């Protein structure tokens, strides 16, 4: 066997290792193994444990939220998000993180290298890099804020609002449901609320501790 073939086989093995091997199985429906590893690593780099808001990204459930987000998404947009995760996991080959081994895939970098890599994307002079970072930060930050305890810690949890029944509620069922499921009749129509929310109002039930 020629040397060139050996080199090619070695490169193939390294490529396969980088792309697919060494990732743990995941419980997620939409996130592939390499994506779950990337999302977990990026979540805890962007939102490490400690600080003013105790929860880390993983503790706040970002990977599970991203999984739900992908599931709710049309196929074309889902593909774009898959591509974004793949790009950002692997692109350390092109834009290595500082320090030894900075070319390893993102999820294999040290925590310090990951933070440096993310900051490199955020402050890049290249618009597409900044754009990719913004997309990633949007997805992860919205996942972080989906955690009720994070919003409670930030005093931004939504308050409970008494939702009045209006004429339209007699006409439409919930999206995708049959009209037979309309729960209200003319007697249920109520007055609109008249007073602004009080900051002392109870929290929305889904955001209570």
């Amino acid at each position, binding site marked *: 066997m020629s040397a060139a073939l050996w080199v090619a086989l070695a490169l193939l093995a390294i490529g396969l290792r980088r792309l697919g091997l060494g990732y743990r199985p995941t419980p997620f429906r939409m996130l592939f193994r390499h994506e779950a590893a990337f999302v977990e690593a990026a979540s805890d*780099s*962007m*939102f*490490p444990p*400690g*600080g*003013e*808001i105790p929860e880390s990204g993983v503790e706040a459930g970002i990977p599970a939220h991203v999984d*739900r*987000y992908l599931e*709710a*998404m*049309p196929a*074309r*947009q889902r593909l*774009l998000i898959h591509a974004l995760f793949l790009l950002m996991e692997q692109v350390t080959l092109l834009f290595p993180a500082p320090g030894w081994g900075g070319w390893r895939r993102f999820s294999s970098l040290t925590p310090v290298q990951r933070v440096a890599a*993310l900051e490199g994307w*955020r402050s890049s*002079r290249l*618009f597409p890099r*900044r*754009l990719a970072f913004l997309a990633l*930060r*949007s*997805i992860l*930050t*919205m*996942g972080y*804020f*989906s955690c009720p305890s994070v919003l409670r810690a*930030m*005093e*931004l949890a*939504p*308050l409970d*609002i008494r*939702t*009045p029944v*209006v*004429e*339209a*509620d007699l*006409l*439409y*069922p919930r*999206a*995708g*449901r*049959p*009209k037979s499921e309309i729960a209200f009749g003319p007697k249920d*129509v109520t007055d*609109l*609320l*008249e*007073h*602004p*929310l009080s*900051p002392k109002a109870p929290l*929305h039930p*889904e955001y209570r501790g």
Partner: protein
Amino acid sequence: MSVPFDGQGEVRVFAGYDRDFREEADVVVVGSGPCGSVAAYELARAGRRVVLVEEGPPVVPEDFVLDGSLSMTRLMREAGLRTTTGSVMPTMQAICLGGASVVNSAMCIRPPGFVFERWCREFELERTAPADLAPHFEAVAEFLGIAPTAREVLGPRNELFARGCDALGYSSEPSPRNVKGCVGSGECFTGCRARAKQSMDISYVPAAMRLGARVLTSLQVQSIRTQGRRATGVEGQVVEPFTGRRSHRFRIDARAVVLAAGCMATPLLLKRSGDLANESGQVGENLQFHPGVSVMGIFPDPTRPSFGATQGYQSLHFLEQGFKLEVLWAPPGVMAVRLPGQGLEYKRWLACMPHAAMFDAIVCCERSSGRVRPRRGGLDPSIQFHLDPVDVRTLQRATHEQVKIFLAAGAHTVLPGVSGLPDTMRSLEEAEILATAELRATQFSAASTHAFCTTRMHGDRGRGVVDETGRCYDHDGLYVVDTGIFPRSPSVNPMYTGMALAHRAAGAIAQEA
């Protein structure tokens, strides 16, 4: 109290379609956003048999999701990830009964007279002067109860904006909005749980139904039917809410077809129907946006930013210089994306949010333009847009003015959100770089939901798609009544202008249908 529905009209939802079907009407209105709903109501009021078709489902409070990202996947086209190419910018269009009115901040701003005078002068329009449109604006205002935001629901964010403008001598006022009983939840963008926002699904659409209009939701209109030079109806398929899966076919025959699918979808529909109404070559051209740039400020005292009308205060002070200033709030996760730093530093910034406020400017980029084309392999648009360097200077000026207002209002730190400039500014001297730097479009994180002009009205049929009443020049019985007919930017939030023009168009259509 609302008047209980007496059942004269009809609404059909996805679960009610079990076979292919065909309907007849005097008028079919495509799209239930602000313009389409006004047109449907006015036509029903004129005694016409109206079918209002909407691709999205009706949504009720149980469908509203407070989580910003999941809410967008349900209520926005392309899951809220639609962007322009060229000058890359997110742009969102809603997909539900009531359209944008369900997920916007209810701002109903009437453009100042100079806007319509310029429209008339530059686009050879004879009946679009301020006095011509005044009765239409007033009719819509009366129906929806448009009024300035009540003091009780302003909250600190809006009050700080007012304080900053006052300190600088800039005019400002509470934003006029179509709300009744607003509680200041700041949740306009994910759907009003207090049912205060008079979105079309709870205002004009039920009123149209009381007058006999039939409202068919979850129907995707795929083409306009014609016979010679006359539009005779529409056809398409039933689509499942949120998944977009298509099933049964439908056809609606009508004497008049009124397109109100929005400035992105209407030109696509015309093009997919055999390039209808396009002898002028203007269908899908002339696209304009109001790119928005936002700035965040941190104050010494808590601002309770999640309380207060989402966009309760505004300044028209710089309107003639090309931008309008507003207060802004959105789901906290959306707001936080712009904060600097990584790791614990990012978390420190997040912890500042209870002391934060956000302002934004919508910029009237009249030198910039783009086009809408069908995207290969789907029904979504390919949107090209290019920001002109002169308009970029206006974005820069608008950002600078926002920083000045924050500092005048007492913010100790301002985050201008411009790439390549300092993340924070704490004084007018530090902000001076916004006046002197040579910035590029890509340095701004602009976004826009205001889009118009892709089927513009023009007095010369060789240079426009429709006349002043929305009638297509090239076909009988075919009308456009959405923001695509604006000949250029209205300089302010477009919903109210679109509704007023639809109100006027409905009068003309009723006479002909």
